């Protein structure tokens, strides 16, 4: 299967400080890849790098490759990116409250995207906007198009953002924590909507989230990020059942589940993601890892396929929650 989006050795720096340190992943047409990690792990920067939406201090470094349907996006001009953004790849964001422009009607904001990418007339794009709002489950869309963002709820606004995103039928949708700011019930509805639209439009989704619950609901594959790198990558169900990296296991353990003993405190990973300036020479997770050995702090582990379809960057990957004793460096795939 050829990949729709192929990212190789993606390095991004802010003001000269590297924050993404060689990110590789593939996303296949119509599939969903979950990109998981804590705040500061680099998942949002990855998404913004792909979209070419880094702010003025951010730069994708030379040598990075971002290929969408075979076209290299890294190093493409702003003008060139504009032809791709919104048309072949679209993005929705974490903050539906502020992502829409407060001074224009919802209809305007959907219609202008339609007009830009599909070249429809003012009137036809208006009608298309109503249709799109209906597609994302907004009731009475004929009335809603004349309303302003502040008149809509958070969930509604995120639906409008989705309508904008799918308006030019993109092959790729990047969703950066699209449900984090929403109520739990609304979260479920939005995820179901994304799933439904994905099937209908055969659209690939890059789902960025810190929430492994979201991943298990929607993703086919999952890549776990830590300190600017991908440290584990496999099928979503396999990761949830069988995390091999101690960090992935820690993330899973810190998700509360129904029926847990309320008197036992929820496990958490001590400490926080080191900032790029403080990345250690060896394994970047070693300082927070309960299984870390002195060797872990010396040599950085490589992302290696330990089991078919399951890569992990750890010298002592967990099997059934127990670390393997041998540093298995020699096994290079």
């Amino acid at each position, binding site marked *: 299967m050829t990949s729709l989006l192929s990212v190789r050795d993606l390095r991004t720096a802010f003001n000269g400080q590297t924050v993404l340190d060689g990110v590789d992943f593939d996303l296949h047409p119509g599939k969903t890849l979950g990109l998981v990690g804590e705040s500061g792990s680099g998942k949002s920067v990855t998404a913004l790098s792909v979209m070419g939406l880094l702010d003025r201090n951010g730069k994708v470094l030379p040598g990075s490759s971002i290929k969408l349907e075979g076209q290299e996006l890294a190093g493409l001009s702003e003008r060139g990116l504009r032809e791709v953004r919104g048309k072949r790849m679209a993005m929705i964001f974490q903050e539906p409250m502020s992502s829409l*422009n*407060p001074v224009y009607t919802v209809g305007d904001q959907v219609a*202008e995207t339609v007009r*830009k990418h599909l070249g429809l007339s003012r009137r036809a794009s208006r009608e298309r906007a109503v249709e799109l709002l209906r597609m994302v489950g907004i009731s009475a869309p004929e009335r809603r198009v004349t309303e302003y963002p502040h008149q809509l709820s958070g969930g509604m606004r995120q639906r409008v953002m989705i309508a904008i995103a799918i308006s030019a039928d993109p092959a790729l949708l990047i969703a950066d924590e699209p449900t984090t700011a929403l109520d739990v019930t609304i979260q479920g509805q939005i995820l179901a909507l994304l799933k439904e639209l994905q099937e209908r439009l055969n659209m690939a989704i890059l789902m960025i989230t810190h929430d492994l619950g979201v991943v298990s609901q929607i993703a086919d594959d999952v890549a776990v990020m830590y300190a600017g790198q991908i440290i584990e990558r496999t099928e979503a169900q396999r990761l949830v059942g069988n995390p091999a990296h101690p960090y992935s296991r820690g993330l899973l353990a810190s998700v509360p589940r129904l029926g847990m003993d309320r008197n036992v405190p929820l496990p958490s990973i001590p400490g926080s993601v080191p900032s790029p300036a403080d990345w250690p020479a060896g394994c970047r997770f070693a300082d927070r890892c309960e299984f870390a050995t002195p060797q872990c702090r010396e040599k950085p582990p490589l992302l290696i396929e330990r089991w078919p379809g399951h890569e992990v960057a750890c010298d002592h990957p967990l099997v059934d929650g127990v670390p393997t004793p041998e540093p298995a460096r020699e096994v290079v795939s």
Partner: protein
Amino acid sequence: MMRYTLTRIGSVIPTVLGAATVAFLLLRLIPGDPARISAGPTATPEQVEHLRVQLGLDRPWWEQYLDFMKNLFTGSLGTSTRSGNSVAAEIGTRLPFTIQLAFWAMLIAIVVGCALGIVGALYRGRAIDFIFSAVSVIGVSAPVFWIGLMMIVLFSVKLGWFPASGAATPASVVLPAVALSLFAIGFISRQTRSAMIDALSMDAVRTARAKGMSGVNVIGKQALRNALVPVITVVGLQFGQMLGGSILTESVFGWPGIGQLLVNSINNRDYPVVQGVVFVVAVLLILVNLATDLLYSAIDPRVRHGN
């Protein structure tokens, strides 16, 4: 929208009545005897008494107040004690000049100030931003009596491009308008720059870029409209001040506006004219504020929805 507009217009009426009351009280609250001061140091007691009756100061204050208000509704602001003309006529001959000067100065200030501010925001931290910042600091801090005189020396005396003073020809307005606009240019460009920097960092602007919109759309449509509210506030304040008569600019360029009228009337102790000018200027300010508020609601729907 309609309801907001009507409520806002309705709220003008009590404000105007308040302004009239303040203008009325001004004359009565001046320490000493207005008739005595107004008549001048060489006046005989008979002349003072005559003036007192003419100004109506011999009657109870509430009667004077009712009279004053009644006259306002018929458009009468009293009679100048100096010229004997009606105050309304005195103001009527001066006001068009002030409005003309304020209009041109404001137009220059909006165009130049917004342009400097937008470019400064887009290139913030670069050389051009620093140059524009320096221009606006000079505009705000250079006193108009100095800049105005320098302009007269250069453009009238040396180059002979524009008349040095008066309002005889259409070209006469150029120098005073430019001089008057400098302060506003500085003010407006600073405000525009910071508002644009805020607007450009909005999530909604990032959304527009994610939609693939062009740079012109992102800057001119998505960001600028969000930046306009604070800019309009400053424009309104500046315009209100200019309409109140820019006494310094009018004096330097011999411009026959309302500011000069006010200064002359104060010097001549022509209290009915002072009172009339204060009232008219207050009404103009109220109208500018009304226009500013209505513009807010036209630009930002959250204002008219009371949010």
